[in-house]
């Protein structure tokens, strides 16, 4: 090694090999073998039974990502244009929930959304339930609750990259656009939006990837009816239908799909940003 300091990277490289490369290799081996470690493709064939879980996972993850984007972009834009004092407070508020474990936060949502939870009690108190003639409004156990849980947990990962990109935008570019005749709507559409696309792309990635592999949120807020890929995999390793070989195969397919999604998305990012969104 030419650079003496590069020796400091050795622990990191070793750690990565031990904790990333080797587990992936183990996963691949499991995915292509039977319980007796005979080579097979049966694990993949078996997955057909779980097509609905795959579809649901991607659908809910996409919806959650979209909702995060629709909430996150305006919030980021607004934050970036305010003063430094406001930005500090807003940032602290966004980060605050993340200082707590996400399971705890998800449990709180359970008690809010339950059939006899805080929200339904509130609806009852204001007479909304009587008005509708129902005992309660079902919220927990729906796909909406799962999406809500994911949006709540992953929204900061959408806001942070978009916010920092918009914050770093060169103010003279906006002045130049105005100088050339663009009103504020056009300045946004033709300059701010295309230049903030890298932030959007990394935000989308950072929300979509954990969303698609979510497991606890879907179980707790989906009430067992909204099984997602993460739950399915968990079930193969820790749950009743113990089959690590099938679990490894599902994990592999999920990883492959996620990688393909990322590659496609980054392709978009490299092209002319404007063409993508306009």
């Amino acid at each position, binding site marked *: 090694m030419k650079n003496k300091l590069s020796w400091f990277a050795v622990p990191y490289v070793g750690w990565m090999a031990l904790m990333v490369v080797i587990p992936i290799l183990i996963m691949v081996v499991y995915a292509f073998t039977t319980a007796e470690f005979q080579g097979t493709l049966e694990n993949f064939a078996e997955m057909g039974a779980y097509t609905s879980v795959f579809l649901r996972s991607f659908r809910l993850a996409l919806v959650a990502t979209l909702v995060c984007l629709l909430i996150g972009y305006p919030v980021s834009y607004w934050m970036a244009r305010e003063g430094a004092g406001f930005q500090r407070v807003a940032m602290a508020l966004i980060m605050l929930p993340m200082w707590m474990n996400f399971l705890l936060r998800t449990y709180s949502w359970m008690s809010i959304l339950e059939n006899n939870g805080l929200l339904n009690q509130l609806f009852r108190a204001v007479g909304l339930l009587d008005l509708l003639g129902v005992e309660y409004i079902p919220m927990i156990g729906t796909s909406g609750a799962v999406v809500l849980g994911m949006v709540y947990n992953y929204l900061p990962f959408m806001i942070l990259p978009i916010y920092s990109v918009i914050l770093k935008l060169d103010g003279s570019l906006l002045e130049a656009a105005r100088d*050339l005749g663009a*009103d504020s709507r056009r300045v946004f559409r033709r300059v701010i939006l295309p230049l903030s696309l890298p932030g959007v792309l990394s935000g989308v990635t950072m929300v979509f990837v954990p969303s698609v592999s979510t497991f606890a949120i879907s179980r707790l807020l989906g009430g067992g009816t909204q099984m997602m890929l993460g739950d399915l995999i968990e079930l193969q390793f820790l749950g009743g239908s113990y089959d690590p070989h099938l679990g490894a195969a599902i994990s592999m397919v999920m990883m492959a799909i996620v990688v393909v999604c990322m590659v496609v998305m980054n392709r978009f990012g490299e092209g002319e940003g404007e063409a993508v969104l306009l």
Partner: protein
Amino acid sequence: MSKELIRLTDCVMAFDEDIVLDKINLSIKDKEFLTLLGPSGCGKTTTLRIIGGFQTPTSGDVLFDGVRINAVPPHKRTINTVFQKYALFPHLNVYENIAFGLRIPKADAKGGKVKLSEEEIDRRVTEMLEVVNLRGFERRRTTQLSGGQQQRVAIARALVNRPKVLLLDEPLGALDLKLRKDMQNELKRIQKAMEITFVYVTHDQEEALAMSDTVVVMDSGRIQQIGSPEDIYNEPRNAFVADFIGESNIIDGIMRADGVVEIFNRRFQCLDSGFGKDEAVDVVIRPEDVDIVPEDQGQLRGTVTSVTFKGMQYDIIVDFYGFKWLIQTTDLSPVGSRIGIKIDPDGIHVMKKSEYSGLFGDYSSYSEEYEEISDASFDPEEEDSGDEE
């Protein structure tokens, strides 16, 4: 050249208590090349931004073609700007950068919106690329261009909209010396060819003199002098202008009569008149207007204290009765030699005393810089008397 296009009347710009512009009055004529010249912080860029619409003056009026435009936003002004660091759009190629303004629908006379056809846009972008010598660069990313090329794109992007006025904020600041000279000629050529009013901001006096029809010298938020480059150089109004534009020896004098000024108790013929009898004045003598003669024939006699070879000429510092002058000469007078000088009447320029009197025009610090190197006991306090050059 005669019609007035822009007028600033008593424009004040204040940020909190800080007054950046103090009652600026300025008239800009159609098709002229006007330069706002001054040191950093003098208010020249703020003046430009007021004309461009990026800042609204705290008080005072901005008139364009006789119409008050204080509250008109930049995108509704027929004025375009070349920004200091070009501000090219990094996500667009050269062609799209230039076409940016053309793609925006413009309001027509009936209040509707007119959109240019692709053919029209293409024709005008191509024509502009021709003007700035960038044919063949259409599809390049702006980040792949050199500083000079980016500069040309910025100019093309502004001019393609056929503005009535082009504002340029230190556009050549980031270029190297050779390129600056080329671009100066280039800008002058474009301005003549397109018959557009240029308002140019710079702190480089040579640039201002070389390019402008009118130079506006600014300092501390006030206009110090407005005039042609020749006027500004030959007839500076105060010590600040005399010092900022070129090299000047500025000496205390007394006006004894019209055409007679006394310095160092000797009377000199000059061409200035209209001062009160025995009025104290500042006298400007340019280093190139001094003739060196044998000591006994000189109007003043002094000792050469330093000599610097500058290629075209020698810069020599001469001590006359304790006041150090800069003189430019092609004949070498060695350090320590006694010389005499003669000054023709047209080499002397008399100015009224101003707040800048006594601050500029003494070259004692100039020579002390050299003494500092050889003399370890140099007292840095004395440096305060010198100017900033």
